[in-house]
């Protein structure tokens, strides 16, 4: 479903991605781990045209990324980025309304269903700043799902949350994974990665160092760099 061929990304002289090759199948849940600055976010942002690649190709169902294909890709950001001037329900309805031109009545029902799915139907008329971080992130997930994407990208979705709010967001993501959504998740939540993902990718210095089943990566990492990273994570966690 997703084919990434030899993708490089430079910001000025700084090369952040140094030749990424990656294939992701439909329904696969892939977690990308690695320290800050390893290129996780940049990789995700390239897949959604928020950054343009310097060289290489990204294909979705065999097609190059453009405005059409990016509509099939939903994205959840570290800092939620909910539309501050709109209510929860309006946040979810805006994109289908102005991008797809769907009618408000149909959308409202769909939006309420999505809110129920993330457990926030009672917050439909609240504004983002009246919600906790965890609630905002769950709304952001519902907002992305409203465009009926085939792929969901999560850019460190729990990294700016208070520890006690992480669980509620991961629960929603777990449910989504169980429904068969194709997901690519940049995360520092090792337990979650182990439990939910079909594959784990360890990114370091702009290259994929290791790519395998979660048990393999976490129990039996092949590379020194992976071992060192996991040790650091265990100590800090």
């Amino acid at each position, binding site marked *: 479903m997703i084919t990434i061929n030899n993708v490089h990304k430079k910001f000025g002289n700084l090369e952040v991605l140094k030749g990424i090759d990656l294939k992701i199948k439909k329904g696969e849940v892939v977690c990308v781990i690695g320290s800050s600055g390893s290129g996780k976010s940049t990789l995700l942002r390239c897949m959604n*045209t928020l950054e343009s690649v310097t060289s290489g190709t990204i294909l979705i169902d065999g097609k190059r990324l453009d405005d059409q294909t990016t509509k099939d890709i939903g*994205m959840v*950001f570290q800092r939620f*980025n909910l539309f501050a001037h709109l209510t929860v329900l309006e946040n979810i309805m*805006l*994109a289908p309304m*102005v991008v797809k031109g769907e009618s408000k009545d149909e959308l409202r029902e769909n939006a309420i269903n999505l809110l129920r799915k993330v457990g926030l139907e009672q917050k439909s008329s609240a*504004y983002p700043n009246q919600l906790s971080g965890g609630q905002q992130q769950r709304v952001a997930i519902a907002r992305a799902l409203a*465009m009926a994407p085939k792929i969901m990208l999560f850019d460190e979705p729990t990294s700016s949350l208070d520890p006690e709010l992480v669980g509620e967001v991961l629960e929603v993501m777990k449910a989504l994974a169980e429904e068969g959504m194709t997901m690519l998740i940049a995360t520092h939540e090792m337990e979650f990665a182990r439990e939910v993902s079909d594959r784990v990718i360890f990114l370091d210095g702009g290259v994929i160092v290791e790519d395998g089943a979660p048990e393999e990566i976490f129990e039996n990492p092949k590379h020194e760099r992976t071992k060192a990273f996991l040790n650091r994570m265990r100590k800090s966690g």
Partner: protein
Amino acid sequence: MDDQILRLVGILTDSFIPLLKAGLLFTVPLALISFALGLTLAFLTALARISSSKVLQSIARFYVWLIRGTPLLVQLFIIFYGLPAIGVTLSAFPSAVIGFTLNVGAYNSETIRAAIQSIDRGQWEASKALGLTRGKALRYVVLPQALRVAIPPLSNSFVGLVKDTSLAAAITVTEMFQVAQQITARTYEPLLLYTEAAFIYLIFCSVLTHLQGKLEVYSSRHLTS
């Protein structure tokens, strides 16, 4: 002594209606029309400033530089008294509208640009990730939020404009201050007449400030928890 007071009260009451009439027929329309046109110009100029086109950016910067760097009164004189020399003859009211519009456009383009740029990048990125084009992101996501930031300085500018319309008296527009001058020439009571005119300006501006307060509360409704 009593006669003198009666005379002054008479001048005051006789002049109030003509002054108010000039205010409502010329001052207010001049301000409203110029502000509406000026805001449109300001918005386009702000878009040019944040566009990726170097040419558009330069044109916008040149326009703002030119208008901000020259006195409004001088601009009005150039338009009304100067342009006929090259065959462009405009009557007083349109000349005033053009002068004020150019000023509103230049000053407020910076306000609007700053307001748009004050909105977090994440709002643009989330819009793009959801498939909104740049134009739609601007219209549905960024501008509504930028407007809240821009309302206080824009209102300030509008109040300033209402008072600046008195400069149009110098190019023969019969707005409120011009009428005050005419009555003064007849009655020789400058203190009385100009104070009265000032008082009516004060009423106009007070009403505007009150409206601004309401607009601000409305545009900030998503921030009250």
